[in-house]
């Protein structure tokens, strides 16, 4: 066991896979010489050299196109899109090209690649550098989507994503980079499509993702002090989605809350709510409640950004008020 930051875990995960498989290459803006603008990829250039760790121009389309072409022809590329907001300038490659290759070729050509990106708010970066876009990705058939919340999960899900034969968008949460967590020694390989139950309680099920996970856990502590015991589930993987773990928990607690950083409309929690509404309806004792960022762009002023995102307080108050 070692304690690592989420930031350090990025390079640990990538290096683990690059050591294992010479087909794994890594490209992005400022990722090599500078070690990444979030200092997440330091040391990779030194260890793996400039053939496999590539500093690119500011050319997101060229980055994803190169990753795709390389993936179609035998490599296992990891591409970085620095801030997830920048997916908007290369979305053709995600939505029309990468996502559809396997299907359009009837399984003849696959795209085993990973696109990592800094997602989410909390750093006062304003409307164009703070978005939570995992729901954009989730809306495209043919793309897998993961968003780890701890250093160990980040390493394990990076490995699982690299080894997966399909394209995976891996969202790192920018506000989690300085956070720390225990990481087991040796190789870490996790599994896509698995949620994790982090806390058990019989009064309600609370599902959260990325930065919302620690906040949901903190809310759960506060609720426990008031005698309300909730189960907290880290969804971790949106596509594929571990509906079994969520439905199983709801069958025991009879209540469901989602805690989502994405703006409300069509957020990932809406899909989970719909599934539970259809398949877990008779287990529910009350309405499903979604706790989300309002359907707004994000402001840069600290107090406005804080007001927009769900925090432990709002989560706890909402759950308590709903449970009555």
């Amino acid at each position, binding site marked *: 066991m070692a304690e690592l930051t989420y930031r350090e875990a990025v390079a640990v995960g990538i290096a683990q896979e690059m050591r294992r498989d010479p087909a794994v290459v890594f490209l992005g*803006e*400022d990722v*090599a*010489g*500078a070690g990444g*603008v979030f200092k997440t990829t330091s040391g990779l*250039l030194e260890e793996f050299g*400039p*053939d496999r760790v*590539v*500093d*690119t*121009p*500011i*050319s*997101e*389309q060229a980055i994803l196109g190169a990753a795709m072409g390389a993936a179609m022809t035998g490599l296992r590329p990891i591409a970085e899109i620095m801030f997830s*907001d*920048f997916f*908007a*300038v290369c979305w053709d490659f995600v939505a029309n090209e990468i996502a559809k290759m396997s299907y359009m070729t009837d399984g003849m050509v696959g795209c085993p690649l990973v696109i990592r990106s800094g997602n989410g708010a909390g*750093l*006062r*970066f*304003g*409307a*164009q*550098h703070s978005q939570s876009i995992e729901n954009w990705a989730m809306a495209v058939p043919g793309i897998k989507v993961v968003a780890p919340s701890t250093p160990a999960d980040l390493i394990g899900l990076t490995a699982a994503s690299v080894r997966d034969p399909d394209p995976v968008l891996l969202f790192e949460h920018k506000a989690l980079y300085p956070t720390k967590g225990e990481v087991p020694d040796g190789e870490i390989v996790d599994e896509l499509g698995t949620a994790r139950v982090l806390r058990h309680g019989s009064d309600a099920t609370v599902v959260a993702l990325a930065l919302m996970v620690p906040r949901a856990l903190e809310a759960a502590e506060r609720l426990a002090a008031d005698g309300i015991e909730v189960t907290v589930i880290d969804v971790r993987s949106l596509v594929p989605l571990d509906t079994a773990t969520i439905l199983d928990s709801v069958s025991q607690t009879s209540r469901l809350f989602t805690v989502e950083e994405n703006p409300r*409309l069509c957020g990932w929690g809406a899909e989970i709510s719909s599934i539970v509404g259809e398949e877990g309806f008779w287990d529910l004792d009350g309405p499903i409640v979604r706790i989300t960022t*309002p*359907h*707004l*762009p994000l*402001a*840069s*002023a*600290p*107090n*406005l950004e804080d*007001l*927009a995102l769900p925090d432990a307080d709002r989560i706890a108050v909402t759950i308590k008020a709903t449970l009555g």
Partner: protein
Amino acid sequence: MPLSGAGYGEHQAVLPQPFDESLKDAPIDLDVRIELFRKQHQIRQLEKRIYDLFLQGFVRGTSHLSIGMEAIGAAFGAALRPHDYSFATYRGHGHTAARGVGPEPIIAELLGKATGLVGGKGGSMHLASAEQGMMGCYAIIGAHLCIANGAAWSARVRGTDQVAVAFFGDGATNIGAFHEAVNYAANYRLGTIFVCENNLYMEYTPISEVTPVTHPAADRAPAYGMDATVVDGNDADAVYLAARAAIERARSGGGPSIIEAKTYRHGGHSRADPGQYRPDDEVQAWLEHDPIPMYHQRLLDLGVGEDRLAEISGEVAAEIDRATEAAKSAPEPAAEELWTNVWADGGSQWRN
């Protein structure tokens, strides 16, 4: 073999050419030059203050300073007419100030205050003041070059002679939007002026490591049937002359221009980046190729008194001090502001 031509982390220092002393005799009115001096001071002192406020913990989020690059914004600020349009990047404090926005709303915006230029919604990367023709600062690289074309087109359709200027970095020349925008403007002879502030670096990577031509903007111009001008971006007179010519051409229906202004940022890319990826001799040479003391000397050589220059820089300093105090004591945005101005009706409602 690295994919790019340059050795990783071992790039050559790119040194400035000496200032062109003959520009002293350029046909620029003295009152314009005084304005260029003032605007450069406004930007330098504003940016220095912002840096101090950042170090003191008042500026959260990010900030990208243009210390060392002031001559470009100042020159365009002086050359444009009030109704012309500017489009800048996240490195846009200077361009905003150059269009006549005072320091108080800029500093307040960076401090996340209610009195900020855009009420705290935008922050350092998103200053805008439509009234002054400052049509915004854009933080997704490339977009605003295309948007500036739209403003130039609109001016033509509306029958005005307004021009649109897009400022962008060397790194922006490698995104598709740059090429789309330049081709589009050239094809339709739009009154767009593309101003590349070539400060040699993207964030932490030298432009030379990822670009096969020496002048990332100017060398691409011939591909779109355009001429380009390369100027010393640290000489306000040089930039002013280029700006004046490009603006005149755009106004008279002569079409777009590309100006590549060679410059350097004294500090890092953003916030506390110390910029250590840059060779020492390069940093040193560019610190000496500073637009502000050079211009001071040029005005002295032109017969402007030291006392006059000191008076101007003193006025600017007092204004920045006043602005800082006002911004610091301003309130945070009210909570209700979170919900305003998503829609043109001022609100954000999406359901009944």
